[in-house]
């Protein structure tokens, strides 16, 4: 465990920042939390709305157990206490995007209690930069609808598509001490949610957003008064909010002012936070147990089924990649940071081991290196993500197998890969058709070496005179003559022999 050394240098000395995050994550489910209506993103306004979502008279909520299951699985993934008895409460307030006049949430008895998330601040040095961030609770609640202010000169329109969509509110403890820690926590949480499959983590679509609680204090003193910046929707913005808000608070305090407990909004264009409302005009939400719903009671069979359905989680996977597969800490971290990447990598590994008839450990390093450098480089260049990679894991494995069994050289492999990206053809076929197979035919190589040495008599002289660096030149010329298809080891040997 590491202690953060992040400090803000004020006129009166050093300040420490204290951060807590409340993350709202939309539960992956085809249906809303209480109504059964669909939840498609980007649908036409008010097309994903049931009578319950529009709060028509006499309508009643019925819990969607798939949403409950996802919340429980998420809790299990962060090693949290699962509450077999929880209850829904109404949070009462008036707003045009809130048809019922209350949000169904869980204040008093959340479904998930205390858990924890381990973050790593330096992926190249994970053991020395680990920190555990406490999670206070996870509860499930309904999302509100959306107001549209740009549709009419004097009126606002209401879109209820999101009304009633299931959210998990994941509340951290005030355990973070720097923008980097807040960023790492949010990234890690997102990774876990995507592994579990309980939230797609698409922050740009609003599937995940954070309320950022920030306060400052002199090291060792009591917590200061905090502010809460609402609805921050990227890791970068969360870090920016922490940094900006902490500095603002230090400035206020050092100027003799006081921090007001308030809600603030982040303006990414100007990179600043603005006051939205202070505690004085805070709502009295009049929480009370929702009388339309019975307490939620989960039995052991349900919990066991949730547990059984959990995939291997990022920390375990990362340890396995390092330990069993022998990958570097950095590669293991990078490959496990995203569920899709890990899935792709494992498909590559499985297929590679199968066709090379080797263990996964034997093909892991080459597979990891190729994925992280060749494939990622190419995808970056053509602006595609792993999900829509033009090359499949099976094709990648085939390419790597061709290198491993000496059919082609690494250099040729790069060429073949380029052709794969362009044409979508299988690597074996490309090698066949373009005649790229590497040769170990000693006679042909010997002839090529002889010719290179004969054509470059002066350089041969220099080499023999002690300029040994020229060895690479002869190898390169021979490879060029062989159009890259010569087995490099054989070339090395024969050049050495020729220069003898």
């Amino acid at each position: 465990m590491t202690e953060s050394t992040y400090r803000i240098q004020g006129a009166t000395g050093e300040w420490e920042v204290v951060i807590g995050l409340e993350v709202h994550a939309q539960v992956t489910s085809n249906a809303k939390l209480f109504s059964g209506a669909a939840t498609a993103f980007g649908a036409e306004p008010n097309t994903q709305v049931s009578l319950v979502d529009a709060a028509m008279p006499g309508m009643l909520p019925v819990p969607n157990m798939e949403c409950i299951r996802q919340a429980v699985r998420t809790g299990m993934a962060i090693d949290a206490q699962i509450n077999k008895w929880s209850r829904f409460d109404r949070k009462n307030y008036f707003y045009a995007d809130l048809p019922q006049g209350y949000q169904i949430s869980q204040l008093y008895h959340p479904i998930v209690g205390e858990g924890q998330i381990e973050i790593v601040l330096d992926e190249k040095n994970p053991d020395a930069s680990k920190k555990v961030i406490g999670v206070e609770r996870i509860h499930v609640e309904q999302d509100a609808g959306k107001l549209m202010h740009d549709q009419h000169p004097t009126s606002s329109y209401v879109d209820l598509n999101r009304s009633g969509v299931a959210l998990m509110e994941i509340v951290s403890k005030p355990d973070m001490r720097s923008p980097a820690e807040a960023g790492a926590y949010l990234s890690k949480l997102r990774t876990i949610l995507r592994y579990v499959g309980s939230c797609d983590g698409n922050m740009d679509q609003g599937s995940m957003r954070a309320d950022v609680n920030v306060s400052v204090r002199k090291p060792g003193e009591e917590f200061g008064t905090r502010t809460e910046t609402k609805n921050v929707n990227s890791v970068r913005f969360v870090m920016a909010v922490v940094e900006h808000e902490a500095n603002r608070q230090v400035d206020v305090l050092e100027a003799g002012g006081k921090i007001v407990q308030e809600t603030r909004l982040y303006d990414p264009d100007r990179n600043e936070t603005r006051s939205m409302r202070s505690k004085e005009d805070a709502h009295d939400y009049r929480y009370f147990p929702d009388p339309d719903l019975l307490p939620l009671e989960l039995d052991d069979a349900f919990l066991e089924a949730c547990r059984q359905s959990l995939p291997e989680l990022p920390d375990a996977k990362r340890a396995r990649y390092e330990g069993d597969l022998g990958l570097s800490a950095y590669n293991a971290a990078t490959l496990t940071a995203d569920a899709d990447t890990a899935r792709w990598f494992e498909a590559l590994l499985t297929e590679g081991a199968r066709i090379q008839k080797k263990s996964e450990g034997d093909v892991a390093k080459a597979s990891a290196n190729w994925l992280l450098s060749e494939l990622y480089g190419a995808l970056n260049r053509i602006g595609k993500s792993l999900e829509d990679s033009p090359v499949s894991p099976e094709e990648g494995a085939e390419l790597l197998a061709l290198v491993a069994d000496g059919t082609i050289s690494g250099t040729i492999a790069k060429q073949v890969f380029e052709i794969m990206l362009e044409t979508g053809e299988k690597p074996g076929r490309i090698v066949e058709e373009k005649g790229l197979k590497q040769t170990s035919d000693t006679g042909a190589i010997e002839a090529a070496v002889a010719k290179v040495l004969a054509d470059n008599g002066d350089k041969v002289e220099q080499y023999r005179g002690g300029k040994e660096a020229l060895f690479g030149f002869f190898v390169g010329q021979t490879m060029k003559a062989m159009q890259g298809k010569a087995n490099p080891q054989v070339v090395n040997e024969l050049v050495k022999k020729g220069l003898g």
Partner: protein
Amino acid sequence: MTDLTDLTVAEIRDGFRAGDFSAREVAEGFNANVAAARALNAFIVETPDKALEAADAADKAKAAGETLGALAGVPIGMKDLFCTEGTQTTAASHMLEGFVPTYESTVSGKLWAAGAGMLGKLNLDQFAMGSSNETSYFGNVISPWRRGGGDNAALAPGGSSGGSSSAISARLCPAATGTDTGGSIRQPAAFTGISGIKPTYGRCSRWGIVAFASSLDQAGPMARTVRDNAILLEVMSGFDPKDSTSLDLAVPQWEAGLSSDLRGKTVGIPKEYRPDGLNAEISAMWDRGIAWLKDAGAEVVEVSLPHTKYALPTYYIIAPAEASSNLARYDGVRYGQRDLPDGAGLQDMYAATRAAGFGPEVKRRIMIGTYVLSAGFYDAYYTQAQKVRALIARDFEQAFEKCDLLLTPTAPSASFALGEKQADPLAMYLNDVFTVPASLAGLPAMAVPGGLDSAGLPIGLQIIGKALDEQTVLNASLAIEERAGFTARPEKWW
């Protein structure tokens, strides 16, 4: 020939099946009575065509030899708290005036599916809040009953199901739906000399019923006989996956199980229900009831429900708390009333809409409910009330260790004149003193008429049963009904 509108539900059902008359004749008879009784203001909307349509369907089905639904040929009234597809549903409020649901409540849907026809939407206290039917935006319902001796004062039919009680006792419909949150079926039944049962909480789906207080609201039937109530309740009950508080249990065959033989049953008489100053005629009626149940073979024991005196204050915390939240949806944004003054913003629209859309009693309860849920008051009121509610439920559990059912008065007095108690909300709330405890405990309870008081007005008795034991409640009520021989009916003046 007998007037068809004097028949009970069972008589209409059986006579129709026997071919004594057509369903259309029955519907026309009741339609005529409804149209002729507008002075009672029992209906907000009359739907004679719907009644005829269902009747014709029943006649056709019978002619074709098809299987007939349990209520084929029977027209009924529908309390205007049940959402009815294509027919205005207002909860007797200005807020929902003109609101036409695109959906049918589960309970009304079951009744139509059983072949019943709709005579109209019955008036009630606004959002079911009231005990005299004086809070309706569409005007008071007037009881068909009058005091004897030439006193023509307009009397309250009880509330909130006052349209239902008035219409049934005036023979505008043989039966109707009611809803009961703190006595809204039982007290109006008592005031008008009819029967009505509030089943165990969860028996009837609340889906599609405009909510007042979710943890208390229960639908139930109202009719002139115990048998008719059993027939309707069988149709109205049953599990509904759309209501999380609905009970996933089979519906018993209550009508087939009817028996007024109470041998082996023990009746508890809660001593706390006989406070000092209890109306002497109510007290005497209660004693008569005890004698009738003994005559039917039951043993009678005194029991204690020690927390009874806290029931009313508890109810008037919990019910308004839930109501204040349930009624937040009436905000002028999506349906119903909208008042949008020139240049108004969202808050102004809320204020104007709710000021105009809700009546004074509804506003009073929203304010009480908002207050008891507020930060700083929540524990003192709401949390405390929930604790007391649990104690009240425990009182009943303990009493039911010694007996099978309880006999009590239904209301502390006979009907009173309209306007008499309106100035004093607390006096009005006292009407629910005998009905509220069973509501808080979620128990089945039934009102059954016992006789007339010295002014010639009906007074009734209440049977409270164990959870899910509607059969015993119905049977004891039947024993009273048989012995009371209540045949009085209001003299037609309307």
